[in-house]
């Protein structure tokens, strides 16, 4: 038992105070907006300090919480926990600042006290999930996180869509928790304790069958939270229906609880896992990334599109984990370090740019009153700030240089490429194939974000609401500016930020990673300088020098030339209207046809006639894609569960005597067989 970290303790207390203040201001939304979110901002700042301190002075001391004495509430800020805590802190800071402006119009209509309570409870739960050092306490924090997220998702519960999405979320989340519970109990049976410290490298010492069971239970349990295909179906339903500040937290950091859990299990509990674990994780990562981006491409609900991209990015992160597991199994800790750093860096980056995109989308949705991209358009003129920040996020998530998404994808590519040389079996083909599918994913993501930025923000407004949209409140813009700046810092400053990962790789692999990743101070390298280098800051400098020179010369030329504005070419029609614009549906049509085996698209065209069948008065067009996972996996599963429940009905007579008898029989059986 070490000394408590004062910053962590005060951050937790601050979130607690925020939650209580939410209860205290239950009927006063104006006060709730200020007080509860001020506590959230304060807590995030304190948490950031705690995370930074723990990363600069790594410690694995545990600290027992004095408040609760029923079970061991131990907390630990080892480097892995500190990294996720820091990620949480940065995102929570921006989102909480955003909330001041975002919630102001809701003061009249909504119970912001409740929102403040659950919001702070969620942050508290998240902070505890990342720092808990005991399986029992971890699962308790996990439930706080899951249930408060559920309550936030149902915040706009008057809509049937919201209630259904939240129900699916909480059911799947609890199925995941059940798997986690089973896995932890299996481990605890061997360790004789629930402390994470006693699980360290323990899983690898189990017999192979138990090892496999523990691994799969953990992977599936955390996979539900992270949104691994096919356990992802709740995610694109639940994230968009929440208020946008909550969506940013859900997609930015709540799903990262699954990633944290995987990192903890894969690299702390397992020492040298069997090779098949890595191949399973890598393959599912690739599938998750591709399925996520393919569905995102056909989505025209701006927030659902972003939610599908969360699945894609989780896939990219999990690919890094899979490669790292394989490298450890094959005995290449240096490569494993690169893969882990790539995955964790992408975790941080995704929290930043997905948070940014959801905040920008939230500003748009608040002003245009729809999530349907086809009814937006031209917002770059009416909301220039929001448009600019969304563009930064779009460039970052598409993995384009020199922003942060490029850096983490580059590291993942390098790890996958180096994997080819680690074995001589056919397994090595997995690495370049995974790499090329990562390239496909990234290119499809770029295509998708051309749509996601181009259709809502460019050209002419497609609806009255879009034409009259107003710029987001200043607090919202400050928050987006903060995250956009972080995209630049994490991209251009990658070589200065990588040493942050040293304590983590020392913790899990025993050696610092940054010496093998930094070349000449300004460039990243993959292991050695021969294996390839990249310098985001160098690229940015030369790029701006070249583009700037071109701009200077062209503008000097243009001063003597005539620059006019005129209408776009309209094929001789009388003027261009928003009806002539390319729609989001049309934009993604080629890919819908090319991948029709995956999408199974359907469409219906129904003309209405007045007089003659040659002159339709109106034409209805409907087009959609088949929800494969829901139809072929979850539909039958649901039918089976309902059937089982109906049969169970026979023993649920509703008579208290029967229930007492069941309890008695169970007790006898347990005494006979359970107690030795």
């Amino acid at each position: 038992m070490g000394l408590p970290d004062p910053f962590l303790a005060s951050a937790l207390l601050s979130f607690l105070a925020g939650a209580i203040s939410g209860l205290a201001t239950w009927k006063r939304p104006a006060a709730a907006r200020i007080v509860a979110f001020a506590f959230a901002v304060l807590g995030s700042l304190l948490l950031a300090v705690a995370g930074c301190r723990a990363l600069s002075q790594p410690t694995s001391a545990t600290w027992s919480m004095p408040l609760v004495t029923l079970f061991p509430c131990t907390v630990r800020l080892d480097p892995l926990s500190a990294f996720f805590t820091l990620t949480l802190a940065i995102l929570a800071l921006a989102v909480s600042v955003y909330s001041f402006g975002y919630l102001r119009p809701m003061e009249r209509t909504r119970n912001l006290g409740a929102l403040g309570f659950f919001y702070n409870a969620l942050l508290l739960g998240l902070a505890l999930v990342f720092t808990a050092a005991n399986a029992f306490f971890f699962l308790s924090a996990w439930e706080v996180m899951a249930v408060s997220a559920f309550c936030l998702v149902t915040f706009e519960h008057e809509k049937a869509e919201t209630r259904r999405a939240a129900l699916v979320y909480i059911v799947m989340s609890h199925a995941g928790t059940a798997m986690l519970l089973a896995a932890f109990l299996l481990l605890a049976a061997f360790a004789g304790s629930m402390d994470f410290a006693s699980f360290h490298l323990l899983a690898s010492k189990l017999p192979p069958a138990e090892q496999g069971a523990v691994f799969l239970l953990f992977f599936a349990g955390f996979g539900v939270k992270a949104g691994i295909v096919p356990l992802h179906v709740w995610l694109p339903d639940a994230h968009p229906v929440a208020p946008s500040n909550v969506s940013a937290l859900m997609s930015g950091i709540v799903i990262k609880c699954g990633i944290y859990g995987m990192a903890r299990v894969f690299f702390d509990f397992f020492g040298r896992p069997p090779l098949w674990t890595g191949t399973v994780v890598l393959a599912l990562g690739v599938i998750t990334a591709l399925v996520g981006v393919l569905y995102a491409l056909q989505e025209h609900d701006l927030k659902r599109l972003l939610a599908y991209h969360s699945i894609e990015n989780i896939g990219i992160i999990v690919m890094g984990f899979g490669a790292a597991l394989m490298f450890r199994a094959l005995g290449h800790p240096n490569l494993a370090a690169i893969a882990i750093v790539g995955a964790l860096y992408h975790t941080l980056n995704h929290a930043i740019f997905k948070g940014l995109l959801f905040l920008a989308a939230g500003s748009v949705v608040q002003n245009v009153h729809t999530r349907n991209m086809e009814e937006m358009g031209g917002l770059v003129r009416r909301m220039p700030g929001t448009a600019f920040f969304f563009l930064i996020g779009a460039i970052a998530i598409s993995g384009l240089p020199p922003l942060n998404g490029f850096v983490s994808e580059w590291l993942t590519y390098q790890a996958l490429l180096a994997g080819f040389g680690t074995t001589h079996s056919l397994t090595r083909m997995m690495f370049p194939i995974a790499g090329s599918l990562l390239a496909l994913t990234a290119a499809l993501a770029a295509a998708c974000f051309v749509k996601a930025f181009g259709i809502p923000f460019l050209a002419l407004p497609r609806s009255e609401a879009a034409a009259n949209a107003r710029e987001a409140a200043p607090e919202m813009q400050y928050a987006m500016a903060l995250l956009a700046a972080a995209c630049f810092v994490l991209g251009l400053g990658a070589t200065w930020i990588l040493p942050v990962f040293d304590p983590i790789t020392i913790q899990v692999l025993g050696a610092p990673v940054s010496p093998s990743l930094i070349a000449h101070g300004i460039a990243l390298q993959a292991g050695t300088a021969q294996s390839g280098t990249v310098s985001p800051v160098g690229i940015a400098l030369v790029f701006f020098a070249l583009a700037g020179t071109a701009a200077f010369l062209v503008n000097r030329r243009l001063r003597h030339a005539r620059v006019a504005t005129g209408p776009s070419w309209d094929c001789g029609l009388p003027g261009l209207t928003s009806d002539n614009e390319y729609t989001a549906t049309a934009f993604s049509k080629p890919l819908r046809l090319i991948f029709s085996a995956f999408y199974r698209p359907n469409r219906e065209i129904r003309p209405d006639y007045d007089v003659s069948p040659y002159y339709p008065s109106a034409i209805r067009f409907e087009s959609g894609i088949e929800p494969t996972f829901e139809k072929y996996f979850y539909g039958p599963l649901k039918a089976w569960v309902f059937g089982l429940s109906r049969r169970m009905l026979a023993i649920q007579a509703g008579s208290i005597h029967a229930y007492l008898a069941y309890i008695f029989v169970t007790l006898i059986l347990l005494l006979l067989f359970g107690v030795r």
Partner: protein
Amino acid sequence: MIASFLIALVQLLLLLTVAPLVGGLIKTLKARLQIRRGPGILQPYWDLYKLFQKGMVLPDTASWIFAATPYVVFGATAIAGLMIPMISAKAPLGLFGGVLAVVYLLGLGRFFLALAGLDTGSSFGGLGSSREMTIAALAEPAMMLAVFTVAIGANSTSLSEIARVATSTTWHFLAPAQMLAFAALFLVLIAETGRIPVDNPATHLELTMIHEAMILEYSGPYLGLIEWGASVKQLLLMTLLINSFLPFGLQSKWSLGGVLISLAYLLLKLLVLAVSIVLVETTNAKMRFFRVPDLLAMAFTLAALGLVSTFLF
């Protein structure tokens, strides 16, 4: 420091001056093969000169994205050009990025071009953007897999290192993996530079345009920058293909004599590559858009076979 700055400047100037020439060469050769006289090999220079002298018309629907795109395209393509070995096995900005950075910088240019296409508000722009992004997305895995084959052979993603390994082993290019990867990259080159059978750079027919549709509303100096950037991209991809697979004659040190020898070899090999592109363009008809995925799937298969062949040889 100053030396490497000068080297970068030399390569930049070469890149910018040779690029229109390659375009002119292809056009002239193609015309001759079709028994036409053709526009003359220097025509692209005159076109660029003319465009930079003109005024321009901006569409009234367009935003600052439309105005920023020409500079982004030009800047991203030019810096990518400095990362490939052109007249020496050592690329001037090799430290700043290798083959992955080149691919992604071209992606940055394409991203903005597609946005500018949507920014005009006409259906042509959106049509071009949609098609361009679709083809690029499908070309990407084939390109990466072919690049990986080369990178794995050299154990590096640095183009300087790839060229160094390729120059140090003679007859390297005859290895099956190399030949298959070369074939795959050649197909990708045709798709990426918008040539027949994927796209037709000479067409202005609405239904068949891809690249041209995206930039339909550009005029004057902006169009000049975009056209120039496109020709630099074409030269860059051709040079990348040449110097990763057939780098013989490429000098590894920067010296006046070495640069001249490398340049002579490069021009010769560019001529050969241009002739093969012209042959492909003249003997093929433009494909229907939904046939293009088959072509790119073929490129992907070739690259995958190249990787598998490393097991056998």
